[in-house]
């Protein structure tokens, strides 16, 4: 089970003054079970990549294979792909349109042509998963808080029971509590439901904390691809393309520059704590 991109190019409005080469010669393989973070500054091609993956836009050039079948093949069932590769857009709560939450969440499964009781079952389960109780099922989207609305919109995608889940900045504009809830939900989906997750994010801390592989996009190409520790070692190059490493990585580097011989590859606060403990034991310092 994998999604594979081979030499994928995408050009917007080709042949006009607005022409833009959004992604250039991308080669990526996403294996089932991964938790991938995609980072890059605005206009680096992140959004284009996410839309290419479930066939919302068609590559100008190149091939995309879902489980080794080309998605641009005439016989390929694009609708089924959309169900398999769920895409949660930025500010997904802006797409809610139904009179009640449960009806909105049923929209996806209903489009898949499922039986009525199956639709209801899936919608209820998806809402439960995102932590929206039965008392709110019949509520209008307008009666919910911002964080609840966002979670309801995510449930709208989860109800299609995708094997892959792509989330474009799912925590944008939420308060710290809302962010934590969403990120924990995503972690739970990955660990318990075994959904392959692609998380597009601007927060290096979030990415470092949750994912096990980072893809850094720059000018439509892949700048780095690897485990967080390896990628954030290149923090000086990351800064050049408008990104950064997690704050704690800088702290560790500062410590080392000031003569404390600590390992500098920590990317989360826990890891930094461990690294300092190791250093303290070695130096005989009591913390």
């Amino acid at each position: 089970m994998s999604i594979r991109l081979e030499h994928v190019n995408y050009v917007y409005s080709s042949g006009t003054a607005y022409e833009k080469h959004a992604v250039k010669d991308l080669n990526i393989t996403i294996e089932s079970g991964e938790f991938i973070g995609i980072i890059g500054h605005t206009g680096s091609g992140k959004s284009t990549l996410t839309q290419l993956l479930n066939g919302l836009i068609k590559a100008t050039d190149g091939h995309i294979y879902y489980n080794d079948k080309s998605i641009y093949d005439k016989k390929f069932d694009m609708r089924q792909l959309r169900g398999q590769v769920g895409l949660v857009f930025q500010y997904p709560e802006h797409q809610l349109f139904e009179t009640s939450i449960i009806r909105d969440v049923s929209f996806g499964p209903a489009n898949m042509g499922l039986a009525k009781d199956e639709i209801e079952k899936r919608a209820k389960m998806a809402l439960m998963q995102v932590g929206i109780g039965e008392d709110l099922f019949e509520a209008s989207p307008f009666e919910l808080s911002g964080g609840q609305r966002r979670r309801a919109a995510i449930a709208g995608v989860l109800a299609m029971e995708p094997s892959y889940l792509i989330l474009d900045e799912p925590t944008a504009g939420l308060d710290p509590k809302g962010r934590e809830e969403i990120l924990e939900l995503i972690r739970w989906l990955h660990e318990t439901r075994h959904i392959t997750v692609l998380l597009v994010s601007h927060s290096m801390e979030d990415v470092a904390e949750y994912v096990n592989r980072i893809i850094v996009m720059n000018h439509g190409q892949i700048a780095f691809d690897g485990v967080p520790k390896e990628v954030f070692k290149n923090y000086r190059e990351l800064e050049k393309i408008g990104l950064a490493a997690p704050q704690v990585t800088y702290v560790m580097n500062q410590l080392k520059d000031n003569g404390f011989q600590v390992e500098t590859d920590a990317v989360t606060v826990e890891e930094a704590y461990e690294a300092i403990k190791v250093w303290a034991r070695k130096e005989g310092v009591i913390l």
Partner: protein
Amino acid sequence: MGKERGGDIIIRDITIGQYYPAKSVLHSLDPRVKLAGTFLYIISLFIFESLSGYVLAGLILLLTIKASHVPFSYIVKGLKSVVFVMMFAVFFNVFFSHGQHQLVKYGVISITVEGIELACFMAIRLVYLILGSSLMTFTTTPNQLTDGLEKALAPLNRLKIPVHEIAMMMSIALRFIPILLEEADKIMKAQSARGADFETGNLMTRAKRLVPLLVPLFISAFRRANDLAMAMEARCYRGGEGRTKMKPLKYKRLDYVGYSLVASYLGIVFVIENYII
């Protein structure tokens, strides 16, 4: 454009009424000159009765397009959206016409030489009209356009017509067209990602399927209007009275040349229509 491409292409294809950034004489003309020129050009299209007039109008159009540095193919794309209207008009003119040289008569259908001639001229007229007016929007930003209108219509202020407010409403409306198109594109994609289908089915089902697009679009339009009103009030906006401009419109030499070219075009049209034939 396969159906799997979702909302991507449909919306980006609407070029009519858009601005096309380029450096050209036409781009740097005062918007009032362009407004007057376009207006008079359109009027001239309805004066013509002779073939030579159409040839002249066509030549002028080609020359201005050349001078505008907007790619010809880009301008022609704008015609696509009106092909249906044009075919409709041509169809009625060809099949339900009166005239002396009847070619076919079958029930209510009658085809005459005059009818075909009229249909051809009408089609040409429509094409010229659309190309001419879209050339103006291609070379003038919406802001310049409303500035030009406001200034040109300023005398109406004396008749208690709120020219500034109308111009402001117009420029806000124009400003929001690309934003709402983008928003529509985004919502369409988001709903397509949930398996929505906007492209198949008959007219009724398709109209019904637009609900998941239109409801969020309206909500977002209201939200944006609200935010904008708040932002304007926060900056003490209170209408046109006593308001000055950062870049007031001023005629330059180029603009007088423009006016005289328009005037000489009108002169030639007058001569052709009255004396040549």
